């Protein structure tokens, strides 16, 4: 995964609380292999009516070229399904801006190069009012930690560990490989101190 420092793109508002991962991707699409792409399933039941026709009033249908979402609190709460992040990323979303995120979702997002940027509730409400039903050009600058829209420069919150990870495109498995010796030593100590923590192999 490549790192990045700037996202330039179109932003739209999804003015709802608690957009959970069941809504981001309904369970019935989750047996699809990743290589087939998850974009078509993003917020499927909000985007399409029961007959499968796109809802014209839905922001993502009006602006399919969007790359930044502005939304309300507790985005990505619920199920740990990383497919919710796959759906966003495959659709072309690069950043989600909200007052708060589900913890597991936010960490899944960072693992897939999707930026979960936090702003205070008042700032979010102001952005939602500014965007209305339209899309607007926005820049999210990861190096400086700010969002630029019109003449405004708004600082956002992001955990410093995640910031570095997104900037550098770090991969955890690669990073952990360099700690192999420490892990092996820890394992030996754990087996001694808490033998009940270990299990025999089945066969």
């Amino acid at each position, binding site marked *: 995964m490549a790192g990045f420092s700037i996202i330039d793109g179109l932003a739209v508002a999804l003015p709802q609380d608690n957009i959970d991962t069941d809504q981001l991707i309904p*369970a019935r699409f989750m*047996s699809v292999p990743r290589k087939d792409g998850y974009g078509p399933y993003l917020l499927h039941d909000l985007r399409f009516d029961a007959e499968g026709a796109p809802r014209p009033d839905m922001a993502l249908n009006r602006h399919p070229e969007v790359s930044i979402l502005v939304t309300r*609190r507790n985005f990505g709460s*619920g199920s740990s399904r990383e497919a919710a992040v796959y759906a966003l990323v495959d659709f072309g979303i690069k950043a989600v801006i909200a007052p708060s995120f589900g913890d597991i979702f936010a*960490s899944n997002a960072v693992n*897939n190069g999707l930026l979960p940027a936090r702003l205070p509730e008042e700032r979010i*409400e102001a952005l939602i009012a500014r965007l209305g039903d339209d899309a607007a050009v926005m820049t999210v600058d990861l190096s400086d930690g700010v969002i630029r829209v019109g003449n405004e420069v708004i600082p956002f919150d992001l955990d410093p560990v995640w910031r570095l990870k997104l900037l550098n495109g770090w991969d955890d498995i690669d990073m952990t490989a360099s700690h192999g010796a420490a892990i092996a030593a820890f394992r030996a100590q754990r087996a001694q101190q808490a033998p009940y923590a270990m299990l025999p192999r089945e066969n």
Partner: protein
Amino acid sequence: MNAPLRTLFDKVWEAHQVLRREDGACLLWVDRHLVHEGSHHAFAKLAERGLPVAEPALTIGVVDHYAPTRNRDRIAAPDIARMIRTLEENTARHGIRCFGMRDPRQGIVHVMGPEQGLTLPGLLINCGDSHTSTHGAFGALAFGIGATEVAHVLATQTIWQKRPKTMRITVTGQLGPSVTAKDLALFWIAELGADGARGHAIEYAGPVVRALSMEGRMTLCNLSIEGGARCGMVAPDDVTFAYIKGRPFAPAGADWDRAVADWRALVSDEGAVFDREVTIDGAAIAPTVTWGTSPEEALPITASLPDPDKLEGARADQARAAMDYMGLTPGQRIEGTPVDQVFIGSCTNGRIEDLRLAAAVLAGRKAKVPGLVSPGSAIVKKQAEQEGLDRIFTQAGLDWVEAGCSMCVGMNGDLVAPGKRCASSTNRNFKGRQGRGARTHLMSPAMVAAAAVTGTLTDVRPLLDGRV
């Protein structure tokens, strides 16, 4: 110098810390890694890199999310059959124990783990499922992770984490009759919000928590995630040890005595400081039901729905959208709302005690609406049948089926039809969770049974009076 005072969470976290990076990220050792059909993305990532599973013996697989609850011998839907086969093949390839479709130990991962004695105090437990918080009922540090993290645990038996803040929820007094751990959980989530505990590890404490059975503690810890918490924990005690003793994977003999001696130290030190403290009066909690599309939208069964016009900004929008989806009218009394069907099961409330309580309500009575009872595991099913609970359910007119996640998530095809209203013992009332357009009301299994008896959302207390 005195040792620093530590919480239960601090003790278990520190016992697993392999290293801490300068930026604060910690690498933690994972004692138990549970995988299910949904782990296919993670196994695919491993295959892409050609990596082996680091600790096959500490990885345990089980079929639950897609497990059919009927006609298991001929699975009609090809993608469901494929999901199950993929797990069984992936675990076999890597030498991982797997409780597959025909295994007598099959069940929902968070029911099976404790039942088998795989879940023990002081362990760090991960699973690619948010309700992994359930295992914290034993004083384990247990939390859900995403697919990239599952691949990382498979490859290294470790996980990178930032240390969460700590929060203690102390429940004083005692719960009223027919009020359960489920009502307690829905109560605190309604008080603090669905993101009220975000970024925190919760420890549940106080006399009400001490008085809960292991089943009740599991229900409480299970729902921690619905309040946004990273995990929930209860300090282990004699109730915990009595539950674990003699289970297949629990330590035995001299190992048992040594383990219990270690586990007794897993308590928060007197005077240890939590980042946040919340106190709840257990006596103030009534049987609770959700009315909206987030677990925070919960009310005592005796209450009336809010009026969105009296709320402000985003809250008003949320309440309006929820009522619209749920087909409810502002200000209406929640009790008496007609339901179309009921569901009893899931990792929240699919254990033997849950089934006993629901059966106590249903004994000698008929359900006015159809419903499904899916035990949390094959072992729970067998136990319930030995106790004759299955006959109480079927004589009431409900369907008694095999174990799995079933109608909690609908992946196996057990769905609520669009627009239908379901009284459910599960954990998520999200839009579309039980099927597109489905209307879910969360409540305790006793309350679900009461809804079955009257065909409406009902206060279970009079129905259980004199029966338990």
